[in-house]
């Protein structure tokens, strides 16, 4: 039923909760804001830019924490179950964002709003409960101290059918690696926003609304979804897991590269999930090894067999689909560790606690995965900290005296589990390490800083910029740095944006591999397109794994028009992506961030270059890449500052 006066695609308002004053208010959002910034991350950028004062302490009452859904969520589109947490990051001091799947995203919109924003600090632990007629802050005293699974189980039993997002002990103890959990262990993990939630003494958000989400053209939505689904269901048989490594080897030794088609990646994802890439990545040099100093020579073909994808799917008891996902890359696995089951560890977790610390014990990976999910701690950051501590131990900066006799040797599974537990409980050396490598190195002194690798304070992910300089660029240049989802040359190839967007350079089918490592205007255009398109995805709530299948197959722009009734071209949507990027950059400048400070330094940038392995001899000209990227946005080449006119144009929207 399309009745006049109803918002189409979006809900048209946000909920603002003041935890200090214990007030809850629903505020309308103008159509102009949606057309300028879409919804989701763009809407959050608009709200937070204006409402967080420049001197706000990320863990203080002035910071705002937003939970936002996407414009396409709940509209009958596919791959649109992503929700995002946003705020001023305590890790970087600038724009913070974390992105998650599961089933929480539609729950936000079914409460009649596109986002829920928290300000202030509650004097005692509380959770927010919202249904169709009620929005209340309720006492969370009985759940404070529970882990994420216990919390969600407790609240789900009390409110059947409700969706829950919560923090665990890591967030309560203000670990800057803390994230927000939903669906019993899916994490919006990055940017340390779980600590912001903990500082606000907000244990959980419980949503039980049933509002309907209206669209402009329901039949068009379904038609596009059916086309999308046909591509997803195309699933020819693929190799056994232990043979994935040679694919990576082949990709490494070939002197030329094929433009990657995301349909192949989709086939891998549907069969195994993200763990499909474990050995391929190590072999081709995409995955960093041993705190960025190792290579596929240190954790090669046979050693990395301990992470081959069949090992994970053998323990899978069922697949797991996020909301509106026809693919189902997730899974629930049985384990033999301290907990009977866990979410199937993701690629990032397996490599963070595999090759990055030279660990070959897969049971430890399952165990640590569940321990961190329950604690509500980011596995990427935690893996980085463990590797950092192991290298400090190797260099005798950390001694047996500091570790109560535990030898933090590379690949020691006992040491890994012990260190993770110490960080979660913030005991002993865990207290020093629980806030990430940048803070830990700051506490440990100059010698340790040489082994702490991060971008602007945030640990890097398991993708090596020396293999794909696009990762290095986006780790460095984004307002929320250090995140692998930001962009890469590989992502650009898979998005196939040139099929729809006029200024996106077309990739040839085959090209000399050396071209990947050159700088130039085409790279700046690719980087800029990556960022702009990601902002569209995050505004719409689209999963990147769907988008990787290509914009001509997963017709996001068409879905947006069918949902809203707008008649915007792909270029118009990309322009919205530009505005969101500019706003996030302006947010950082407002909060005193110098964008150049986020630039990768040391090993991850190839300084010094590797002397062995897949990335031997490669250095990234990160300064040129960043300057070219900023120029592509029309910002100052040296400082990354948008012009006053550009900032005024987007900050005046209301």
């Amino acid at each position: 039923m399309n009745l006049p006066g109803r918002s189409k695609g979006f809900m048209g308002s946000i909920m603002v909760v003041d935890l200090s004053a214990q007030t809850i208010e629903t505020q309308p959002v103008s159509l102009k804001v949606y057309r300028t910034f879409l919804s989701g991350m763009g809407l959050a950028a608009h709200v937070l830019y204006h409402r967080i004062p420049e001197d706000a302490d990320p863990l203080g009452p002035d910071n705002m924490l937003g939970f936002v859904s996407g414009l396409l969520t709940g509209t009958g589109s596919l791959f649109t179950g992503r929700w995002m947490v946003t705020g001023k990051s305590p890790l970087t001091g600038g724009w913070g964002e974390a992105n998650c799947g599961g089933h929480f995203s539609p729950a936000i919109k079914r409460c009649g709003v596109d986002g829920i924003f928290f300000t202030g600090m509650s004097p005692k632990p509380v959770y927010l409960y919202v249904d169709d007629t009620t929005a209340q802050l309720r006492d969370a005293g009985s759940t404070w101290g529970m882990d994420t699974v216990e919390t969600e189980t407790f609240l789900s039993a009390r409110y059947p059918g409700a969706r829950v997002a919560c923090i665990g002990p890591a967030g309560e103890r203000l670990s800057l690696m803390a994230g927000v959990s939903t669906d019993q262990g899916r994490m919006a993990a990055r940017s340390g926003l779980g600590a912001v939630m903990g500082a606000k003494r907000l244990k959980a958000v419980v949503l039980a609304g049933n509002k309907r989400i209206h669209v402009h053209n329901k039949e068009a939505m379904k038609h596009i979804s059916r086309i999308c689904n046909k591509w997803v269901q195309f699933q020819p048989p693929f190799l056994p897991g232990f043979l994935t490594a040679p694919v990576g080897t082949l990709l490494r030794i070939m002197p030329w590269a094929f433009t990657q088609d995301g349909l192949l990646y989709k086939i891998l994802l549907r069969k195994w999930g993200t763990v499909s890439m474990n050995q391929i990545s190590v072999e081709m040099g995409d995955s960093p090894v041993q705190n960025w100093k190792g290579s596929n020579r240190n954790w090669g073909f046979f050693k990395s067999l301990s992470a081959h994808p069949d090992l994970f799917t053998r323990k899978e008891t069922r697949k797991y689909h996020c909301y509106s996902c026809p693919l189902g890359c997730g899974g629930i696995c049985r384990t033999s560790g301290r907990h009977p089951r866990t979410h199937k560890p993701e690629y990032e977790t397996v490599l963070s606690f595999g090759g990055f610390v030279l660990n070959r014990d897969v049971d430890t990976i399952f165990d640590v995965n569940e321990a961190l999910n329950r604690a509500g701690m980011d596995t990427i950051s935690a893996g980085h900290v463990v590797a950092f501590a192991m290298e400090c131990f190797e260099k005798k900066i950390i001694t047996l005296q500091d570790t109560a006799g535990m030898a933090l040797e590379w690949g020691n599974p006992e040491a890994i589990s012990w260190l993770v537990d110490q960080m979660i409980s913030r005991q002993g050396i865990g207290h020093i390490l629980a806030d990430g490598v940048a803070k830990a190195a700051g506490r440990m002194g100059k010698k340790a800083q040489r082994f702490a690798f991060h971008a602007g304070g945030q640990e890097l992910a398991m993708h090596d910029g020396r293999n794909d300089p696009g990762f290095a660029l986006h780790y460095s240049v984004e307002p929320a740095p250090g995140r692998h989802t930001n962009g890469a040359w590989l992502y650009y190839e898979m998005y196939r944006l040139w099929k729809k967007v006029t200024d996106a350079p077309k990739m040839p089918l085959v090209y000399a591999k050396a071209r990947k490592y050159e700088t130039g205007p085409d790279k700046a255009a690719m980087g800029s397109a990556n960022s702009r398109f990601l902002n569209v995805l995050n505004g719409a709530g689209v999963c990147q794994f769907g988008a990787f299948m290509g914009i001509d197959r997963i017709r996001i722009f068409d879905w947006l028009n069918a949902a809203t009734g707008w008649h915007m071209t792909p270029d118009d949507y990309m322009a919205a992506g530009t505005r969101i990027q500019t706003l996030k950059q302006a947010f950082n400048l407002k909060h005193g961030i110098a964008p150049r400070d986020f630039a990768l330094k040391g090993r991850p940038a190839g300084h010094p270059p590797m002397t062995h392995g897949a990335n031997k001899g490669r250095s990234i000209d990160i300064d040129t890449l960043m300057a070219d990227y900023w120029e592509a946005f029309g910002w100052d080449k040296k400082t990354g500052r948008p012009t006053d006119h550009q900032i005024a144009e987007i900050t005046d929207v209301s």
Partner: protein
Amino acid sequence: MAFFITSDCTGCTACKSICPTCAISGEKKQQHTVSDTACIDCGACGRICPAGAVTNPFGRIVSKIPKKQWVRPFFNLDLCMACSICVDACPANALDIALQKVRDLHPYPFLVLESQCMGCGFCAEACPVDAVTLEKRAG
């Protein structure tokens, strides 16, 4: 625009009890009212009202339908993508997902409890691949 309760209402509270969003208020034996903002147009109030006192958003009276003749969803698992859009669309929390196919680890939707289903059809309306059909319930 929402469903509306006319002065023919006898205050039997049947609509108030079944409304999944608690959008209906009113005392026993008094005329009930529907909240515009909370109503989701599921129509359950109209289907259950013995007095024919409920009008739909277009102003037409909704006739009472015996519960036996209400529709319920059936799932074609060969078409189903296991995306759980239907489960989310159900305002009565009557659907869930579980493993149902041999050697297939993807969980598919099913109706947990027929008595909980209000026959609103939101699940079928939401399914992008028409894997959900509505049929009269048996018995």
